[in-house]
């Protein structure tokens, strides 16, 4: 266990210990302990970033060499490791955690211990997912995130929170069970590969790299099944179009901090899992079925966008908007070229920041007016101008205004989708990939729909004639406009939005190496696959991986 591995492990263990500590200590101290643990999380994330060797950002670093054997018989080891993508998402999670704790100081008054306890317990589960290099470790953490979220929604939500919490839990849980089935199938397939093919074949081994090679050796039919099993699980988490109905319910019922972390990081588990499992594991099947997933994504974008427009509840509107936004993210992911993948990873981070911030603003408004419906609210800019500014700022960020973070990721996703698969038409801009210009054109209309519903929200809630819920007079600890604490949170989220909007190179440079590895799987230059003397290529079904062949195959 290298000394560097300590960082990642402490990133998981300290908050976990803190959550237990919170449960034991008094109500009063719950928030302070939670705050301390989240700050430790931030410090550790920064230390990890410092130790991380950014020049070689593609390789798995800061990990344990062999990992702690959990179930030796099945080759399940608690091995950790982080590459640039995972590290950035950990930094996002670590960054959001203190803000959430700080943000819910006035929202939650009774049984703080359980609230802050579960909130702090959520962090190690999330980090576990990004850090895991072993399938079972990944899956355990992937499931563990559901429990705190369930408790947060069911005991701290608003009106019919129980139903929403159970639906959220069961929906995601069934999905991930199917995904587990698919992944275990790969492990079994790996079991009866003959050991000569590659290191780790022919035995029970759940290391992700080994399973990836095994999955790639699968014939197309089986790969298709594994693809759909994994997609069934992870698409629910992303919420991709047909399986998204749990999100609006979960969001409207979750407490402010709950929906921030749900939109901020939990949805990214799905896209991260797809990037880490679906795309590298089943290259042929992905090429075969990418068009279907892209169609779902596009339908999601336009369909959810239009639904936002008729919503009467602000939080449901923003929830549907994240379904629509993540449609772009998935589209970029399945463009299978550098711009598309960069766009989708950037999207994960940007969406976390801007939609998380939007939920914070709505939470602040909810704490004052205790209602979220458009019918009895309007023109709040009159009473809360600072809040109106931040609300406008984050709406513009999520509508994809250039200069703010939303634009860069949306632009990259769309241009990635446009040029993916366009290497057939003349001109060098095109790259290999399953999608094409028409996908981008229709998805582009999503930008218009986004403008429609977000400006509808701004027009109703922030601008327009002033209207407060009848019989409302100002009370409670919070001032009419934002309190310094709330302004602090908004500024803390606004600055990264602006910085990432103006200088995305900060992230894109480091993402080039890991994403290049994913792309090489598709364009055939995967080092493991390519070199002749690697026995792996012998065992492999000799799929001719030159781009043109794959392209014909994809567009057959």
């Amino acid at each position, binding site marked *: 266990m290298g000394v560097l591995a300590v960082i990642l492990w402490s990133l998981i263990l300290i908050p976990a210990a803190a959550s237990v500590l919170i449960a034991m200590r008094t109500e009063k101290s719950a928030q302070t302990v939670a705050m301390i643990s989240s700050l430790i999380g931030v410090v550790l994330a920064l230390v990890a970033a410092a130790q991380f060797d950014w020049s070689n950002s593609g390789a798995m670093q800061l990990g344990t060499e062999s990992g702690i054997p959990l179930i030796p018989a099945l080759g399940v080891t608690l091995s950790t490791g982080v590459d640039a993508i995972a590290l950035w998402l950990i930094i996002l999670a670590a960054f959001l955690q203190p803000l959430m704790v700080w943000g819910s100081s006035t929202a939650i008054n009774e049984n703080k211990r359980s609230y802050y306890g579960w909130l702090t317990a959520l962090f190690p589960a999330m980090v576990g997912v990004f850090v895991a290099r072993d399938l079972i470790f990944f899956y355990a953490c992937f499931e563990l995130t559901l429990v705190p979220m369930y408790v947060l929604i069911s005991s701290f939500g608003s009106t019919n929170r129980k139903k929403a919490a159970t639906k959220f839990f069961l929906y995601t849980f069934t999905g991930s069970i199917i995904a587990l089935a698919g992944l275990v199938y790969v492990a079994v397939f790996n079991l009866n590969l003959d050991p000569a093919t590659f290191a780790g074949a022919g035995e029970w081994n759940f290391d992700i790299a080994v399973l990836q090679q095994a999955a790639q050796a699968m014939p197309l039919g089986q790969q298709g099944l594994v693809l759909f099993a994994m997609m069934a699980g992870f698409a629910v988490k992303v919420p991709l179009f*047909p399986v998204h109905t749990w999100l609006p319910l979960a969001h409207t019922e979750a407490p402010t901090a709950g929906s921030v972390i749900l939109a901020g990081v939990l949805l990214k588990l799905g896209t991260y899992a797809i990037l880490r499992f679906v795309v590298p594991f089943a290259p042929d099947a992905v090429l075969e079925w990418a068009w279907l997933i892209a169609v779902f994504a596009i339908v999601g974008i336009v369909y959810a966008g239009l639904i936002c427009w008729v919503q009467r509840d602000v939080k449901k509107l923003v929830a549907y908007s994240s379904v629509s936004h993540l449609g772009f993210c998935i589209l970029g992911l399945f463009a299978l070229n*550098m711009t598309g993948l*960069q766009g989708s990873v950037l999207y994960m981070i940007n969406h976390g920041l801007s939609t998380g911030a939007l939920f914070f603003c709505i939470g602040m408004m909810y704490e004052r007016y205790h209602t979220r419906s458009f019918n009895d609210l309007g023109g709040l800019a*009159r009473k809360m101008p*600072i809040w109106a500014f931040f609300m406008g700022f984050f709406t513009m960020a999520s509508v994809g205004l250039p200069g703010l973070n939303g634009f860069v990721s949306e*632009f990259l996703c769309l*241009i990635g989708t446009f040029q993916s698969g366009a290497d057939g038409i*003349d*001109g060098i*801009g095109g790259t290999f990939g399953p999608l094409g210009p028409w996908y981008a054109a229709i998805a582009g209309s999503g930008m218009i729909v986004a403008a429609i519903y977000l400006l509808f929200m701004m027009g109703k809630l922030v601008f327009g004639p002033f209207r407060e819920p009848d019989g409302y007079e100002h009370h409670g600890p919070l001032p009419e406009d934002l309190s310094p604490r709330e302004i602090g949170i908004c500024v803390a989220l606004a600055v990264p939005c602006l910085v990432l909007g103006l200088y995305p190179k900060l992230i894109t440079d480091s993402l080039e190496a890991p994403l290049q590895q994913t792309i090489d799987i598709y364009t055939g230059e995967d080092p493991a696959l390519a070199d002749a003397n690697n026995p792996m290529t012998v065992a492999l079904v000799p799929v001719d991986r030159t781009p043109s062949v794959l392209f014909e195959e994809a567009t057959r």
Partner: protein
Amino acid sequence: MQELASNLMNITTLLGASGGESLFTYQESSGGPGWLGLIPVLPAIAALICLLLLFLARKGMASGKSRGPAYLVLGFLALSFILTLSGFLMWNGQGKPAWIVTLFDWINITWNSGDGEQSLIANFGFYFDGLSFLWMLFVTFLGSMICLYASEYMSGDKGYARFFAAFGLFVASMSCLVLGDNLVMLYLGWEGVGLCSYMLIGYFYTKPEAVAAAKKAFIVNRIGDLGLALGLYLIYTTFGTVQYDELFRAVAERTDAAGSPLDFATMWQSWAIPCLLMIGAFGKSAQFPLYVWLPDAMEGPTPVSALIHAATMVTAGVYMIARMFPLFLMDPDLHALHAVAWIGTFTALLAATIGMAQFDIKRIMAYSTVSQLGYMFAGLGFLTTTGGAYHVFTHAFFKATLFLACGAVMHGFAGQLDLRKLSGLWSQPGWRITSVAMLVGCINLAGLPLTAGYFSKDMILAEAFYTPDSLIHFSGLMGWILLFTAGLTAYYTFRVFFRVFVGPEHYEPGDEAYDHDSDETGEESHHPVEEHGDHHADHFHPHPPGWAINLVLSVLAIGSILAAIPYFVSDGNDKSKGWVGDMLYSSSAFYKSPAGHADKHGNETAVLVPADPVVLPASFADEPAAAGAAKGKVPAADAWPVRDQVEAGSILGMDPHKAMYYISAVFGLIGILIAAYLHGPKGPAGLFIGNRTQAATSRADALLPKLGPLPRWAQNKWYVDEFYEATIRLPLWVFANIFHAIDKLLIDGALVDGISSLPKAFARSIRPLQSGVLHSYAAGMAAGLGIILLVVWVFSL
């Protein structure tokens, strides 16, 4: 300095190499002085400081009422104007390379390093060449003038600092748009100005109409932006680059960024890219399908309409087409330019007809802007970027003057804009400067001979006839339509002038709350109306504009007169195009019209021969350059279309350039006379000024019934808004509700809840088996035994 620019190979300008002129002179670029990068940054900084002031004011640390923000933004704008001017003077020169100033790397992604390396590079950099200097000059100049105007105009408004923050941000994004050195920067500016126009139109956010207008503007712009975005993606996918310098070099050499040849004639992108860019331009510059947002944008304060919706933002579309002109010329049959010409002409005519029937002077000015923009696009369509650009230049000045004058009137008369309720301002004390400014604006707009508007419009009209039908089909017909529209323009301009400024002194104040909602502090109650007494006119005393407004009006009036000078002054090699032509000569917007005959200044007809034999497709090489005046076009099957010299068109047999002076003047005068006849005071004496007695003539009202439903239709804007509502907004709303129902009932209700209730239903169905009667259990057991035995028996056979 930006190393990308310096390591660009310094190819000899194509002029020298082949003697003939290439489609356009490719302008290679070199690093420019760093401080030029400050031009867009300064207004942005001003905006940020204003925001801080606003924030502090909200916190009570700074007084909300001071004019600080206005002067702050004014100072920064003036500074950036000076920087632009000095930058231009340093740079000024024909054929000099464009300057590229890169601030920092913005989007910079490369992949597949090694062979087949591809990259997407869009830096935060600026591209200074003739076109961008021309645009920046009048953007920053007008920006600072209008900012001065607004400092007084907006005084007393609660959101003062917010206004100027948005104002600064607007000029910053406009400069990013104009100066951006790659298409993504253009897109950044494009959406930035969209946002600022949203914020400024929606400035009076307590008024639902303003909020709706702002939303409408942003969404219609967004539709245009989608076209631009897709065009951008297609350009990148075809050429592999979005940087201007690489892009123009690629188009000049007819290859993509990596040098592999592209056969423009057969590529579908050659017409697809210009069409997509055109959609973007129409969205932003309010052309036919997407113009509906501009008239509603009048909800915003007048300085906003003056700056954004007259001079700067709406010209962004023209700038973009001018900048991307080489791409528009890729298509051998020039499909896109045909569309631009046709839609430009149609919009001009449509807007003019609507403008004639409106009563709100700001709306009339808005429609006139749409109409003049139609002219500019028509100019671009007739392959005269110089004509278009020059008309933008002059239009910016006189339209700003007109708007500001109307603003002054509205400011003075407590928000009154209806021309039926105002007249005889000329002779009112203190309104003389406004009236003179209005007059100058009107004569320019109407195109009275020897005014700047006359020359710029004349350039476009002349080109309409000069460009042969073979190149742009029916350009002659479009020319005549534009001439007719020029007449209409003259009519409605002077209709406003006569109804508002000439004639007896009579006025009714508008409702105060209409314009500047001075009191926003909490209570919604109307401003105490008694003080303004809108019922009986004698109590209400219009307060004439202050020193700032008068100063700006006079400066701009003089400016719009002086705008005629650039038509004559020219030191470039093509005297006919004037100073604007020289500016455009050294930019990507330059285009040598193939049509030619003995030029006004006698230099030989420009023959356009594809420049670079090396690149030529083999089949073309053996065909001698089309020396003769071959009628029509060489079929563009495979070779790069030969734009050989084609016979120039003519108007009524005469050379369009010379003849147009007289013909357009005639149309202009006819328009003015009709306006005088219908709306001017009775008798020739009243025609001019000062006749107080004559009541506004009722001839116009008498004529109305005879015209049948036409005026009513025109007044209702030909029901375009209603049409859009019915065909786009309503179906979308219906679809949204259907999707919502599907989502809630079908997917969530039927599928998810349905499946989750399956287990319970199944359990309920088998409950009766538990009947409690001993015998039924026994029977069950016996039946089970029997079945087992049967199965064993059957399987053992």
